[in-house]
């Protein structure tokens, strides 16, 4: 069915300049087991001294076949796979997938479920930005940042564990709402985090933002103009660092984002430093959203009662024959989605994370495609890094905040 093609060395020679073939420049293989490539990215560098002449990102070392795997699962079962894509944004992936199914099935999600989704996604955004900040700091040699950030991230993972029993792979969001309601101490735990965290962000900023070494290392590095950024398909903080105020939560609100009051921070220079500042400010804005969502958290059900798609609560099984039938149908063959296709994008911490579903009317997806920001952003890496030093390259890779699980799916 599939044919493999032999690739000869000659076919790859166009990737590097003629100077490399003549031995004038050095080819350096960076990764996939290099500490600063954020996972298993391999970058083929062509260096003149330490100046990057060209760089060729090579992805695929973490290929999991998740898109294909999802086709073999029932619609609801496939939700489990979404967590494994971008492992720093597990709830966000689940949200994109559930929104797509809800759009296709025209399922209503109760307001409480929507608000809890927003809280968890925004907390996850903070956690993801914390991992970015920690590793970015580590790449530039500020090794303490890494440990401080992971300490705070732990608090968020504890909240996820409180809700779902799982720290990372929560699969808490299901088509039509949530797996179950959050426990009683959820609100307390989130408020405790909100009380503690602003002070921590200020501390991180005190360590880095005005640090002359950090500014030297990040300003005017990896510059991309707003126009180029749009042309390369950059989204999220990586795009907003260059100026465009494009945030899906604002331009195309989902899950009730229109009710919350928050700013979309943007940069002006499009360099590593501006992208850093955008993400730092985003953490504060995410806190604002969580605060508002928590303050106006409505009571009520957390899952749609459309029994075509959502199994009935267990208590009903003893009293209602209809409930038993729904339960049996949903847990044996799943639900059928109407024939059609849908694209549902959400604002992940990295950018526009979209899921494209194609349904043939059956209980399984015909095709699932993920439009993942890391994959798109890696295309721009050569443009960003040309003419900079190797030391800057690790900063640039950090500043576009790639997750290889997101890129290779």
């Amino acid at each position: 069915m599939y044919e493999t093609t032999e690739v000869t060395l000659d076919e790859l020679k166009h990737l590097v300049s003629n100077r490399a073939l003549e031995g004038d420049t050095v080819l350096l293989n960076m990764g996939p087991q290099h500490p600063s490539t954020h996972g298993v990215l391999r970058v083929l560098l062509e260096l003149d001294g330490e100046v990057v002449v060209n760089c060729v990102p090579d992805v695929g070392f973490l290929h999991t076949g998740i898109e294909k795997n999802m086709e073999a699962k029932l619609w609801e079962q496939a939700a489990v796979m979404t967590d494994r894509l971008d492992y720093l944004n597990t709830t966000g992936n689940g949200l994109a997938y559930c929104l797509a199914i809800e759009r296709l099935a025209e399922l209503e999600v109760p307001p409480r479920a929507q608000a809890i989704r927003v809280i968890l996604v925004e907390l996850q955004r903070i956690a993801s930005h914390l991992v970015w900040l920690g590793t970015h700091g580590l790449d530039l040699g500020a090794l303490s940042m890494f440990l401080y950030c992971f300490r705070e991230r732990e608090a968020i993972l504890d909240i996820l564990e409180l809700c779902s029993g799982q720290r990372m792979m929560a699969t808490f969001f299901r088509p039509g709402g949530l797996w179950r309601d959050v426990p009683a101490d959820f609100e307390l735990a989130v408020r405790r985090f909100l009380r503690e965290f602003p002070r921590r962000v200020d501390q991180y900023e005190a360590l880095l933002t005005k640090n002359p070494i950090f500014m030297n290392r990040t300003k005017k590095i990896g510059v991309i103009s707003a126009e180029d950024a749009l042309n390369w398909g950059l989204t999220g903080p990586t795009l907003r660092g260059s100026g465009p105020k494009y945030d899906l939560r604002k331009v195309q609100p989902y899950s009730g984002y229109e009710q919350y009051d928050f700013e979309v921070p943007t940069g002006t220079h499009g360099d590593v430093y501006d992208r850093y500042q955008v993400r730092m400010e985003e953490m504060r804005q995410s806190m604002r959203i969580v605060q508002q969502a928590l303050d106006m958290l409505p009571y009520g059900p957390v899952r749609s009662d459309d029994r075509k798609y959502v199994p009935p609560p267990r208590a009903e099984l003893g009293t209602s024959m209809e409930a038993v039938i729904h339960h049996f149908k949903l847990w044996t063959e799943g639900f059928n989605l109407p024939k059609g296709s849908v694209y549902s994008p959400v604002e992940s911490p990295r950018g526009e994370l979209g899921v494209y579903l194609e349904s043939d009317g059956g209980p399984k997806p015909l095709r699932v495609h993920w439009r993942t920001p890391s994959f798109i952003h890696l295309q721009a890496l050569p443009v960003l890094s040309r003419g900079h030093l190797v030391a800057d390259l690790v900063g640039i890779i950090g500043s576009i905040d790639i997750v290889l699980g997101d890129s290779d799916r």
Partner: protein
Amino acid sequence: MEPALFWEYIIKSGILLLGMTGGFAYLTYYERKALSRLQSRIGPNRAGPWGLLQPIADAVKLIFKEELIPTSANKLLFILAPVITVIPALIITAVIPWGRPIHLFGRDINLFIADINVGVLYITAVASIAVYGIVLAGWSSNNKYAMMGGLRATAQMVSYELALALAFVAPVILAGSMSTVDIVEKQVAMGEPWGAAFGFILGLLRWNLSMPLGFLIFFIASTAEINRSPFDMPEAEQELTAGYHVEYSGMKFALFFMAEYIKMIAVSMIAATLYLGGYNGPWMEQLPILGPVYLFVKVFLLLFLLIWVRGTLPRFRYDQLMAFGWKFLFPLALLNVVIVSIVVALGG
């Protein structure tokens, strides 16, 4: 040479070498513990009480590691490079006095190995040798990352060396001698008006106010000299995956590691001697044996400063270090020398 003097030298050298290597082992422990407190971690706590046996466990591990030599490496230089790096680090402290002469076994014993009249020159000369080890290690490994680490070390050396040399010049002008013993005694003499208890404070103040930028320049330049963060570009973990020692394993790696930490102790001793009064402290006259204790305390505090800086600052880029060294540190060091010359000319 009389036999007793010969034995005195052997014993003193032995104490110094053992002190430096043992100091290295426990400096790694000290750094891990201090760094872990800075980073809200616990640090080593498994081997022995409070993890005190951790350095020994590390040493045992490193000794039993397989020693790999890459087939394409230049074997002679590959083996020689760690030796070239570690020996200057060990011998550089020979001219550092630890205290006043003490009377022991019916002999006056000087608490230094050698008081040569060009002691400061000896320090600068020996300190510069170590970088050859790093460059040769980078070159002989036949690894591109190691090569870049070696090149960075070269670039780094030419950028801080001048400022460092000028930071050595200032105390020499002030003391009017290149002997480290004379430099310390001059600082002791400066503090005499305040008596035995507080004299060392006056000495410290008068000495450092005469060359206000000296200590700062020396500290920055010597941090670059020993490849400590934020100037650890030759081995930048995140950029060059360990840089010049990427191909080294086992004891050969341990030697590089050892050289780096012994150099930390050595520059702390030099900084204490040239700028912080060396072995000088309260009631030195009455109890000369306190000298080594004061020196130890000063070195301990300076080492903490080095660890603290490592836990706080991001890393420089090597071209930025060159710009920093030439455009900022070097003029500042020249200014410092001018100031100290004026002070000496006016004050006599």
